[in-house]
């Protein structure tokens, strides 16, 4: 996104990152799943986070630019850390390794298709809001 690492921007990303990380962990504490079943906590954070990022970034970039600090805090920091790709990948591999290949591969495919679709939906919804007069 941005090219130069400025201390203020990095600090906002770090604070947003801490909040996003703890929030994702807490979702995992609230939604309990048994071993060898569909990993709902990761699915919920990834899909909701992708929807929220589509909504937020479209507002920030197309309606209220440049919104640099808000983008650093919310988009790169909070939502970037709230969602995760490494857990998705490892959960997929673990399910396949433990003899649940259809569930693992299905989980990966459903996460990516639903996540991308919900992000696109967020972008479309944000564009329904009229541009501010200026």
């Amino acid at each position, binding site marked *: *996104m*941005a*090219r*130069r*690492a400025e201390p203020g921007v*990095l600090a906002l*990303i*770090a*604070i*947003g*990152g*801490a*909040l*996003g*990380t*703890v929030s*994702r*962990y807490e979702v*995992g504490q609230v939604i309990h799943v048994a071993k060898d079943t569909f990993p709902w906590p990761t699915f919920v*954070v*990834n899909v909701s*986070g*992708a929807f*929220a*990022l*589509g909504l937020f*970034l479209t507002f920030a970039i197309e309606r209220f630019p440049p919104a640099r600090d808000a983008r650093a805090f919310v*988009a*790169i*920091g909070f*939502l*970037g*850390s*709230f*969602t*995760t*790709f*490494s*857990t*998705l*990948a*490892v959960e*997929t*591999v*673990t399910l396949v*390794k433990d003899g649940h290949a259809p569930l693992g591969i299905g989980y*990966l*495919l459903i*996460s*990516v298709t639903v*996540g*991308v679709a*919900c*992000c*696109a939906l967020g*972008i479309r919804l944000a564009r329904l809001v009229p541009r501010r007069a200026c």
Partner: protein
Amino acid sequence: MLILGLVVAGVIGAPTRYLVDSYVIARTQSRLPFGTFVVNVSGSFILGGLTGLVLYHAFPATPKTILGTGFCGAYTTFSTFAYESVRLAEDHSPAAAVRVVLASLIVPAAAAAAGLALASF
């Protein structure tokens, strides 16, 4: 204690993602979102390795949660991957976006499997 560790992991992981992403974008000069791809592949490899250390070498649970759920979780991102894929399809090329999505279905999972396999030795 665990929450404090997760806070520190998030404070380090998110800016690391931003710096790696910016570095790769500056190096590749491409419309394709290589920065997020590199982050997600490398983070998946590390988390695969950590998971293997827990499974095969009795690596303790709390450090694993802080490094894995905390650092790797914050370092990698799903939302940015989804957003960049949609925007690539809108602004540049739906075919390129499909290739990015396909690569992201295969390569991070393969990297996680490689990390896991490496840690089994």
